[in-house]
């Protein structure tokens, strides 16, 4: 599903964020991406979101080389990916419902379909009763769950999460991980960037470790 092929990213100014990264993830696989801050976790996720382009090497999604996608094809690609951000990136002037509906709206879904899917996604994260609230009225954990609902409402094939449990207590963290497990069980490829050691230790999952832009351990075969 995901294949990094000798991928490097060098920023203008010479900083090398990723160095010859190679790894593969199958469809329906779930893995952690670890490493201390600045090791390149965010850059790797940005590559998968096409927010950055590699300096060299290839990134293949389902056999398709992302280098070959033109800028105008990026939106179509992003509709196959769901992202959970650490700072949740919710629009504060819109209701929970409208926030979650956004990925469907940009894809041109009819209103009835949007209503059905948004409610299903909110039900999945246990926030169905909060759909008309503004994000500021919610707790940190609830905001994060709204972010997750938005990331999965359009049924992406790949789910990326950047420190999804960053500010949450252990109980909420496990709840959120359980959610991710559910998506994995229906065939979604899930990649979670985190340095939450407790979380990693609690789950039997493949762990990829980045150090100064190099993938020192791709954890392949572990926890499958």
């Amino acid at each position, binding site marked *: 599903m995901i294949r990094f092929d000798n991928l490097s990213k060098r920023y203008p100014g010479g900083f090398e964020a990723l160095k010859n990264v190679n790894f593969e993830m199958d469809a329906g696989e779930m893995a952690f991406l670890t490493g201390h801050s600045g090791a390149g976790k965010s850059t790797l996720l940005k590559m998968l979101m096409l927010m950055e382009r590699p300096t060299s090497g290839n990134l293949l999604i389902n056999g398709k080389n992302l280098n070959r996608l033109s800028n105008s094809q990026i939106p179509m690609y992003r509709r196959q990916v769901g992202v959970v951000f650490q700072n949740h990136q919710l629009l504060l002037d819109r209701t929970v419902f409208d926030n979650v509906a956004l990925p469907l*709206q*940009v*894809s041109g879904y009819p209103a009835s379909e949007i209503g059905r899917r948004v409610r299903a996604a909110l039900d999945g994260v246990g926030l169905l009763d909060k759909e008309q609230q503004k994000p500021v009225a919610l707790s940190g954990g609830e905001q994060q769950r709204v972010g997750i609902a938005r990331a999965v409402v359009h049924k992406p094939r790949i789910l990326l999460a950047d420190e999804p449990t960053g500010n949450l207590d252990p109980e909420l963290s496990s709840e959120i991980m359980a959610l991710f497990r559910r998506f994995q069980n229906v065939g979604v490829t899930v990649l979670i960037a985190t340095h939450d050691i407790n979380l990693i230790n609690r789950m039997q999952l493949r762990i990829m470790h980045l150090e100064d832009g190099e993938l020192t351990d791709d954890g392949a075969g572990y926890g499958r």
Partner: protein
Amino acid sequence: MAANDRNSRDGAQRGASGKKIRFADRWHGYKSHHRDTIRISLRKLLSEPLQTLMTVAVIAIALAMPSALYLTVENVEQLGNNFESSAQITVFVKKGAKPQAIDSLRAELDGMSGIDSLSYISAKQALLEFKALSGFGSALRDLEDNPLPAVFLVQPAVSEPIDMGQIKRLMTKIASFAIVDDVQIDMAWLQRLHSLTEMGQKVVLALGAALGLGVLLVIGNTIRLSIQSRRDEIIVIKLVGGTNAYVRRPFLYTGMMLGVFGALAAAIMIYSSLLWMSSSVANLAELYQSQYRLQGLGFIGFFGLIGLGGAMGLGGAWIAVSKHLRDIEPK
């Protein structure tokens, strides 16, 4: 969650992300998206009434000024046309001409082709009229002689457009009579009026172009500020797969609305000043026994102005959007 699971599994099995939507649904979604965009853009404009009002006022003034000047030129031109069809030749009879000679001139003129109507004002009549109308009555009383000649007022038979050559030939023919002192036609000022209105039209174009540029800049700047204040929203939309067209759309609608509102306000300004002036113009026209009335924008002019405003709003927004949206990419 059950429904979601099932759907997700469907998506995985298809090898697609559930983005396959029937065309009819997509079209329907597209239409309702446009409707929503218009509604949201309108609500955003109304949520900042002062800002919107000021922008609309600037646009309205910039559109109203060249439009008003255009109407002025049109009206003056029409006024000129009115006078043109009543171009009159004044034939001055030599002083001291014998009444028989004047009678025979009248007979000659009567028989001449190219003359529509003819009227005679004797020297005595002319003096009486002058006394009555000029206000110099008491000064004239001191004169021993009547200084005024007898005149024939000749109304040439003219066709539209006016053929100055034909009128000139008629004038030469009349001037050739021995008894005729001078033949005059007051056309020079009409020609001057013509060149003035021509110049006026050019001024309208130049002013229109300059103020049109101003409208583009004002709308462009408003949209630029609006883009900056919605930066986060744009980034999130791009991250969830919104196309550039999707991101662009609300700003284009906002620009177009500002342009249309500005044009509407400009039309209101023009109509109210016409209303304000029309009674004095009617009074003036009455003094000249004229049916002349001020011309307004008319149906085509009104919708032309609205269309122009909308197009300029769209254009200004397009410039701002194409310049600034590219800079906003998720980082």
